[in-house]
């Protein structure tokens, strides 16, 4: 009898602690294998990451890949409530960097001869949905990809924001986002100028659903599996964001420097977004993707050239390609994308002059203003300068 009780206790404790052993193993596997040379080279970058944390950002992750090697590191916390350290293998919200994945998948379809970038999106949409979007017969796939379509934006509509914040469980479907802009005139004549629109990428995801059956499955099969991105996730299941490695998100609700855990709101929001958002990944997987994309591993050289054909902003500055952003960081030209949400901000860029890939993520919302942001912007710029000042 005693032995039976003892066995039950042992069994109970094994069941109780097995998940912790598993987590502990995962955590040790997360330690980045940075070379001594890279640790010395990027000591200044590590310092800048610590500076960001000291400004009030909960946690920061950075990844760097040059011709000579890689360096991954973290600072601060992935969860403030129990001071869980941020780790370079934590899953980060990509937010709008997801657009680059969607654009790449559309270019894959183009390479397969299934889509013409210069045909109106009307031709590739279900009839009813096409009728909701005014002038969809004049908006080409290319215009939606490079934000020159003029499609009205759903993301800033007060009737969307209020429901999102007051009723996070509200079951938004992709069609619901389009219904918010149903029958509204485009903000300008399709193709006449550049203006960033999340709605365009939602419509493109719906277009892909119509063409392939499931755009998320297409992305998983043609990008994640093809590149071996084992720590990148997008709409595998309704609860695909319920992962312990995913960072908690925080936001400065009242713009006064006091942070609230926004993870519930963030997950409810991100998991319902398609095309314009929705992916989570690690720093290493993020860099692997951008490198594969820009080296022509995923799409043809012709399609890559299309992606890097920039449209100008209102000042005449080249701004955006097809799911790729052209910008300047640390004084250097960068190609990639950035993203921001209710609990995160992220940047994934390639610096052609330095042949360097950089992934940077924080678990503080960037879509709501905070006094923390202004000081952090200066430090982020210094961080890029540190990374780009020399190779490993």
């Amino acid at each position: 009898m005693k032995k039976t009780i003892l066995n039950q206790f042992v069994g109970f404790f094994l069941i109780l602690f097995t998940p912790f052993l598993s987590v502990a193993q995962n955590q040790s596997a997360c330690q980045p294998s940075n070379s001594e040379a890279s640790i010395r080279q990027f000591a200044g970058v590590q310092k800048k990451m610590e500076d960001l944390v000291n400004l009030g950002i909960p946690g920061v992750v950075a990844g760097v890949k040059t011709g000579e090697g890689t360096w991954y590191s973290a600072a601060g916390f992935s969860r403030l409530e129990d001071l869980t350290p941020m780790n370079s293998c934590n899953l980060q919200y990509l937010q709008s960097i997801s657009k680059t994945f969607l654009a790449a998948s559309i270019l894959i379809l183009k390479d397969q001869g299934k889509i013409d970038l210069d045909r109106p999106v009307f031709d590739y949409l279900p009839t009813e949905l096409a009728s909701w979007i005014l002038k969809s017969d004049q908006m080409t796939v290319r215009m939606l990809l490079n934000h020159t379509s003029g499609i009205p934006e759903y993301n800033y509509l007060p009737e969307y924001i209020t429901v999102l914040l007051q009723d996070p469980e509200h079951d938004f479907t992709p069609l619901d986002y389009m219904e918010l802009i149903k029958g509204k005139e485009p903000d300008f004549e399709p193709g006449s100028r550049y203006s960033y629109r999340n709605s365009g990428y939602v419509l493109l995801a719906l277009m892909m659903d119509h063409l392939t059956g499931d755009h998320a499955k297409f992305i998983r099969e043609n990008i994640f599996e093809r590149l071996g991105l084992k720590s990148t996730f997008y709409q595998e299941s309704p609860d695909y964001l319920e992962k312990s490695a995913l960072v908690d998100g925080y936001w400065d609700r009242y713009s006064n420097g006091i942070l609230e855990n926004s993870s519930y709101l963030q997950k409810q929001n991100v998991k319902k977004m398609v095309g314009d958002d929705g992916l989570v990944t690690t720093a290493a997987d993020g860099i692997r993707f951008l490198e594969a994309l820009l080296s022509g591993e995923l799409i043809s050289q012709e399609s890559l050239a299309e992606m890097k054909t920039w449209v100008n902003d209102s000042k005449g500055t080249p701004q955006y390609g097809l799911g790729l952003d052209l910008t300047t960081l640390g004084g250097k030209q960068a190609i990639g994308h950035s993203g921001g949400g209710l609990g995160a901000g992220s940047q994934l860029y390639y610096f052609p002059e330095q042949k360097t890939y950089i992934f940077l993520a924080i678990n503080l919302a960037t879509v709501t203003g905070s006094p923390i942001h202004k000081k952090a912007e200066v430090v982020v710029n210094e961080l890029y300068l540190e990374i780009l000042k020399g190779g490993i």
Partner: protein
Amino acid sequence: MEKRIIFFLILWTASFKAVAQESPTPDYRNFPVTITLQFQSFSLPFKNLGSNFKNMGIGIGTEVSHNGDHDWIQEFSIFWIRNKAMGNGLYLVTQTAWRPYLGNPFFGELKAGVGYKLAFRPSESFIQKEGKWLAAGKKGKGMLAIPIGIGLGIHDYSESVYSSPFINYQPVFLKGFNQDIPLVPETIFQLGTRTHFNKLIK
């Protein structure tokens, strides 16, 4: 549904003046005790009405009339609302109400005013001081509140203690929520009653 409600409210508002002139003004007693049940939501006026009923609150107040006809009233109220998603709120509000009588014992009401909302957070918050993260509780921020309301009630005067039940709907605009949303809309459904006590007759 929402369009029908808006149409009804416009029609009803437009009829106030004509009806008011035909109806005699009943007697009135200042400083009743007003008890209210509130249903609040972070939403645009007449949008997403169902979400109001997830967030309930209670309030207490009083009022005083501005004129002999008692159709201009100054209301004072304090109320607390529980809102799990957006955080609870404590409101201190005064409103000037135009309360035309629609025919004994019914009155309509249009009102506007000013107030203060002390907003709380839905979860614990944190602030970093000298490199350490400290819990900052759930207290949020005080904001200027601008309520505008429309209502309907019963005023059946009696020499003894009498009650006056009412219902109203109020869009409330909060100023200075954060850097990105300077003016935040809320809506409040309010059910309540004003109890006019005898000892306070003047």
